[in-house]
């Protein structure tokens, strides 16, 4: 199937107006020596029916989470997506539009982004938010770049080992071109060690990076950590699980300088890891250091309220090499999905999703802790994810579970060599009691 409308007659009449005899004349500037004088080896065009059949065969080679029960989290979450989100998100007018550079034709998108910025601020306890970044990991990386801009000559970053290992990787990649030193902070009892932070923080520390709840699902002692950092004049950036903020106090309200996070869990499908959406919020005093797009209010001559992109002089298309960030295309549509999610759940619903996830996760942890050979390694408070220590390898358990159409937890030993046989499980509001009990029964079976 091709999507070009031109008939042979039209092509001829257009060439006539252009004033060249044949299509070949249009390629006159391309040197003969670089022309591809053959047809691409990409196969013949396929009809819709053929591609559907072929993709149907391919899809059957995957095990998806509408047919399997999953206890995997670790940065991608199986929260329920309300039915109304799809139909409004996929309205062509949102879906097939471009960046709202021409405000008058993009009021719908711009107002929605303004609402998104507001919702993110309400959730994180912050004053300003941008219109989205790529994903949770790159948002944390942008937070580091911003802390370095604010910190001027400071060149050290304290990075907690309780941050998602993939996020740690991305942050380091982003900062390769900078003269920065990353200092890892050890954990204790599943939480970042306050003693280690105290020892490692100096007048040269630009920022402290945390995750809340952290990669192990545990809550960090945020106020104490912020105090330690601020005493040394360092900034604090926290990557949060937005669902958790339905019931947990936000590090933003507790004084953190930057709050970032992954918005996938709010209305976006898991989709093998993307597209996801990074959110980014901070305080008004830092707004000119913010990366990415920002929507603001403006009025027309008749005094009507409207919305437009603002503070564009920070952005790459104006500031070029002196921009706050190189981001251009962001994740607007995914940000919209997360807005629709936040609005659907509203004030009470988000708290209810968070509460149910918590109670179910704690129910599961409690049941597992009664199984001989399962130990609870840490006593720190946790949200919807938690680790258990097994007397077998997580791999062995996961293989057995897979046969029962269950996708088990994460083998923490893959990312933390010292945590061999540690198994990270995630429970959302979607998991039923009978699914939890089945998992417990299967793990108890020897």
């Amino acid at each position: 199937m091709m999507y070009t409308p031109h008939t042979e007659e039209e092509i001829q009449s257009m060439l006539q107006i252009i004033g060249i005899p044949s299509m070949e004349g249009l390629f006159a500037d391309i040197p003969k020596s670089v022309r591809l004088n053959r047809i691409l080896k990409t196969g013949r065009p396929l009809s819709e029916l053929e591609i559907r059949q072929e993709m149907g065969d391919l899809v059957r080679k995957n095990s998806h989470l509408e047919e399997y029960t999953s206890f995997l989290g670790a940065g991608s979450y199986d929260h329920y997506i309300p039915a109304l989100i799809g139909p409004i998100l996929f309205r062509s007018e949102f879906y097939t539009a471009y960046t709202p550079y021409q405000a008058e034709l993009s009021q719908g998108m711009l107002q929605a982004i303004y609402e998104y910025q507001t919702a993110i601020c309400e959730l994180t306890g912050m004053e300003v938010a941008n219109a989205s970044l790529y994903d949770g990991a790159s948002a944390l990386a942008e937070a580091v770049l911003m802390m370095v801009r604010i910190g001027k000559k400071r060149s050290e970053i304290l990075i907690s080992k309780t941050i998602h290992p993939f996020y740690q990787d991305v942050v380091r990649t982003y900062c390769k071109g900078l003269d920065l030193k990353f200092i890892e902070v050890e954990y204790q009892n599943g939480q970042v060690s306050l003693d280690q932070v105290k020892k490692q923080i100096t007048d040269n520390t630009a920022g402290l990076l945390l995750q809340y709840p952290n990669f192990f699902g545990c809550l960090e002692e945020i106020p104490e950590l912020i105090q330690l950092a601020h005493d040394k004049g360092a900034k604090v950036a926290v990557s949060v699980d937005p669902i958790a903020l339905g019931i947990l106090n936000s590090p933003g309200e507790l004084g953190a300088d930057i709050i970032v996070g992954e918005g996938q869990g709010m209305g976006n499908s898991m989709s093998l890891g993307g597209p996801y959406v990074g959110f980014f919020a901070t305080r008004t005093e830092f707004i000119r250091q913010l990366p990415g797009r920002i929507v603001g209010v403006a009025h027309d001559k008749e005094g009507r309220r409207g919305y437009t992109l603002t503070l564009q002089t920070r952005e790459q298309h104006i500031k070029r090499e002196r921009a706050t960030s190189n981001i251009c295309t962001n994740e607007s549509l995914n940000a919209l999905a997360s807005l629709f999610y936040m609005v659907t759940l509203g004030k009470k619903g988000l708290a209810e999703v968070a509460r149910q996830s918590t109670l179910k996760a704690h129910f599961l942890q409690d049941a597992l802790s009664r199984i001989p050979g399962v130990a609870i390694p840490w006593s720190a408070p946790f949200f919807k994810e938690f680790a258990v220590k097994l007397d077998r390898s997580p791999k062995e358990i996961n293989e057995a579970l897979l046969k029962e159409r269950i996708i088990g937890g994460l083998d923490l030993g893959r990312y933390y060599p010292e945590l061999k046989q540690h198994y990270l499980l995630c429970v959302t509001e979607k998991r039923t009691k009978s699914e939890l009990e089945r998992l417990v029964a299967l793990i108890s079976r020897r």
Partner: protein
Amino acid sequence: MAEAKRDKLIFEKSVSGRKAYALPPLDVPESSLESLFPSKFLRKEPPGLPEVSELDLVRHYVKLSQKNFSIDSGFYPLGSCTMKYNPKINDEIARLPGLAALHPLQPEETLQGALGLLYALEELLKEILGFDRISFQPVAGAQGEMVGLMMIRAYLQSKGENRHKVLIPDSAHGTNPASAMLAGFEVEEIRSNSQGLIDLDDLKKHMDRDCAALMLTNPNTLGLFEKDIIDISKVVHEAGGLMYMDGANLNALLGLVRPGDMGFDVVHSNLHKTFSTPHGGGGPGAGAVAVKAFLAPFLPKPTIEKKGERYVLDDNRPDSIGKVSTFYGNFGNLVRAYVYIRSNGAEGLARISQMAILNANYVRSKLEKVLKVAQDRICMHEVVFSAKKFKSREIHARDICKRLMDYGFHPPTVYFPLIVEEALMIEPTETESKETLDSFCDALISISKEIELNPELLLNAPFTTPVGRLDETEAVKKLNVRWKKG
């Protein structure tokens, strides 16, 4: 479009006690949160999100959508953005649960279809681009640029070379210099010559042992093919530098020329442009980056490999620059691009570029009577005009854009490239018909008459949009970037 009214925000429509959700009753024993967390961790007040009914919510956002212009509603000739039609089959496939409901950390044996698709997409793009390996991790073009430059840096460092400069033409996209800075380079600008092409002499002057790479867009942002590309490559390679191609304009080259055959060592492709995944009002995108074999060790991890009949994710890459996105990139968009490439096949891909070039030249020929074309020659898939001649009437490119909205068209890209005064950059794309191009050109011709007869009309335009021209200075001076309960 709906009539212009002061639309309330969803927050202003909130009524305490309304609900748009229902959860199943909790089926595990109830216990208080206070018994699970020390109370210092608990939020005192729930987040200030609106309380609305499902119908309130749906109507609110359907109304907002109606105040938005899109490719499905009309012609959207934004230069350098490639706003082509997005086939519906792409989206239908990407939303199948067998692709959308996959957890990225599932065991590989449960993902053989998805990993196989990524492997096959890499094979197709290698052929289309003329390269040896591809990473799908970058989720946007600008991220691809950063990744490409980081690989160049890592490669040079592995040879013990500490080259710290990247050369970028003055016509380049703003992301190029910004990405180069992020990758740890300094930027030097190369002049364009009177033909709108890279100035070879200026390039030679800047090309020295400190130069890591030349970052070039071909066709360039004036819509012109850099016809001296072989000489340019030679100058750069002989001085020990590498050639980076910004693939934003790849829509002009499919089946005609492969970046790999022009001497480029790295290219990124904005899959959301060339391979038609919807732009979503500003994303998600996908910025696959392709390299020649000698750069492959530096690719972000993981890569997708085939071992016998199995597809695996390879994390064991000691020279890799690391990871750039949490998981494996924007998979949903990669599925769409795959379906699009397979649907078009070889003939379709070649036709995309041919018709894109035909359409741009048609617009150029029809409009050169009323607007000055920046470079008077055959162009590739886009054409840049200058509205400079109207400055004597106090009319700027911006005013023409605003008036075009009243004629039912989305305006072209404006004030870019920076080297053209009062630039209007038009990219029609291959999916537009002759009739659409005719009516668009007629609109611009009639606007040029309005400039002669009634310039005031343009200064006050648009008249038919939900709001009139907005005071962008006010938006900066009186910053209001979030709603607050009044």
